[in-house]
């Protein structure tokens, strides 16, 4: 069995993020990392691998669309135990929206032909929580999203997921696409051995041409949305943020009294 995990290279969660007023795109010049939400998808793939009778027979492949330096961030997944990385990297892909990104990613996934494609809950820069549905449609595969509990048996996957009304249980035959929630598991930390071994695992960078995707299908040319302008959000009023120096609790109480909230 082959499991592909779609993982994104995003700005470090602790970094201040900004949109570049010139390009109106996210400023990606700072430190980047593997999207934390996707670490849960990697963990779930590894759990499925380890749960089977023959762990060796299950391959976990990380598939990512991003800049060259994303490869380094993807090594974290290899250090955790994933087998291989395929990075789709191409100047022409910059500025891709949902339509264009899903096309490039679907092409890479077609090439892999994985039995199960896993996604994380959301990219921390786009907050879309939508890409899987576009990719599943392009791959013409059944989809289960927002999965908080996943089971795999007899060529089927079964996912429990939350909606506005409570919990659904959905089943789909493989090959399928599954997007997991951030509560599905506690991701492991890479071991020292894992970290040492990661560098030696196969890491392939492919271009869009390699995947048979033409330049006008990706990037700005292949996108169907655009950004017109950037602006400040309406202020919500005064917000105060203090460091706890041991008096944090007192400060909260004072604030509540001042606001007559207590």
């Amino acid at each position, binding site marked *: 069995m082959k499991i592909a995990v779609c993982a994104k290279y995003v700005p470090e969660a602790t970094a201040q993020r900004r949109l570049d007023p010139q390009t109106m795109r996210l400023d990606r010049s700072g430190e980047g990392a593997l999207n934390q939400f996707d670490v849960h998808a990697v963990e779930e793939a590894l759990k499925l691998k380890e749960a089977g009778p023959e762990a060796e027979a299950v391959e976990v492949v990380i598939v990512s669309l991003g800049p060259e330096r994303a490869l380094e961030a993807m090594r974290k997944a290899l250090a955790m135990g994933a087998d291989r990385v395929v990075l789709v990297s191409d100047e022409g892909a910059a500025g891709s929206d949902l339509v264009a990104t899903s096309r490039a990613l679907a092409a890479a996934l077609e090439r892999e032909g994985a039995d199960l494609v896993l996604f994380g809950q959301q990219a921390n820069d786009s907050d879309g929580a939508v890409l899987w549905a576009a990719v599943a449609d392009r791959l013409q595969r059944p989809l289960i999203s927002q999965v908080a509990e996943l089971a795999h048996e007899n060529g089927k996957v079964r996912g429990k997921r*939350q909606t506005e009304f409570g919990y659904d249980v959905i089943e789909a035959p493989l090959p399928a696409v599954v997007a997991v929630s951030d509560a599905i598991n506690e991701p492991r930390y890479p071991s020292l051995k894992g970290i040492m071994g990661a560098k030696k695992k196969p890491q392939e960078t492919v271009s869009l041409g390699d995947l048979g995707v033409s330049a006008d299908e990706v990037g700005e040319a292949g996108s169907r949305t655009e950004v017109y302008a950037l602006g400040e959000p309406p202020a919500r009023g005064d917000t105060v943020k203090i460091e706890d120096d041991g008096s944090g609790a007192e400060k909260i109480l004072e604030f509540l009294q001042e606001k007559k909230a207590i």
Partner: protein
Amino acid sequence: MKSLVFLEHHEGKLQKDSLGVLGKAAGLGGEVEAVLLGDGVEGLAAEAGRHGASRVHVADDVLLAAPLPQPRVDALESLLGEGGHDTVLFAASVLSADVAAGLAARLDAGLNWDLTDLAEEDGRLVGKRPALGDSIYVDVGWTSEPRLALIRSGTFEPAETGGSAEVVKIEPRLQDFSLAARMVEQAHEESEGPSIEDADVIVAGGRGLGGPESFALVEELAKALGGAVAATRAVVDAGWYPYAAQVGQTGKTVSPKLYVGVGISGAIQHKVGMQSSGVIVAINKDPNAPIFEYADFGVVGDLHEIVPKLTELVRARKAA
């Protein structure tokens, strides 16, 4: 402009957010139509008419009974193939996000999500989208038609216009792969568990608590303040706390006088359920946590230090 609004329904009722989006579409002008997909849903068309739809396309089919996205993409594809609609609007939900994104791929149509407003400006449709944890607003648009948009939950209030809709039956052809996923058990409204909607004070706990046992800290503080306990999806999904206490897009919408968030990052999907609270206090050890963007008073620190102390202080002050 000729828009189509995707109407979501559950247990025989149209969703409030869908009706709100319908009202917004009517306000934008042009022709406003709606689409209802399900099994035995024709009866809901009249209510859509009262909320601004002039025509409702209805597919009643057992294959559409379960709220699964993929057959709905097929249905919308064939409806849009008949031509005419330049804009398709969805109220964001777990279901409609997957429908909208699947449709975007199917039609190579642009999708903008998490919009909090739509307006005609200089002859083009512009979506207002708060981005990067609501730290910036972006005006977004589309370069082709149809234009697809997901509207952030809770954005528009429904308003009756008193109109009536013509019902047009449709019989979409569904694809095999769209029917491959099967609903084994469908969610239904749970009435058990605590009610948090009427509470004046809410203390909410998130994954920062570290484990279900730490909810005791939150419960103690809530008790001292005379309030109710709430939770994020992350801890509900993990089984630390009941779903009935969840605040956010897929949980409850609350507006207490005081909301205290403990070990909660403050994701947008959580924020939409509590942003209208009177006073928001946050305790989080990460100074960059998004919740500090909208908390009236935030303390950067360890909840295990701060919460028990705060509980003691509140108790002492109430006793005094």
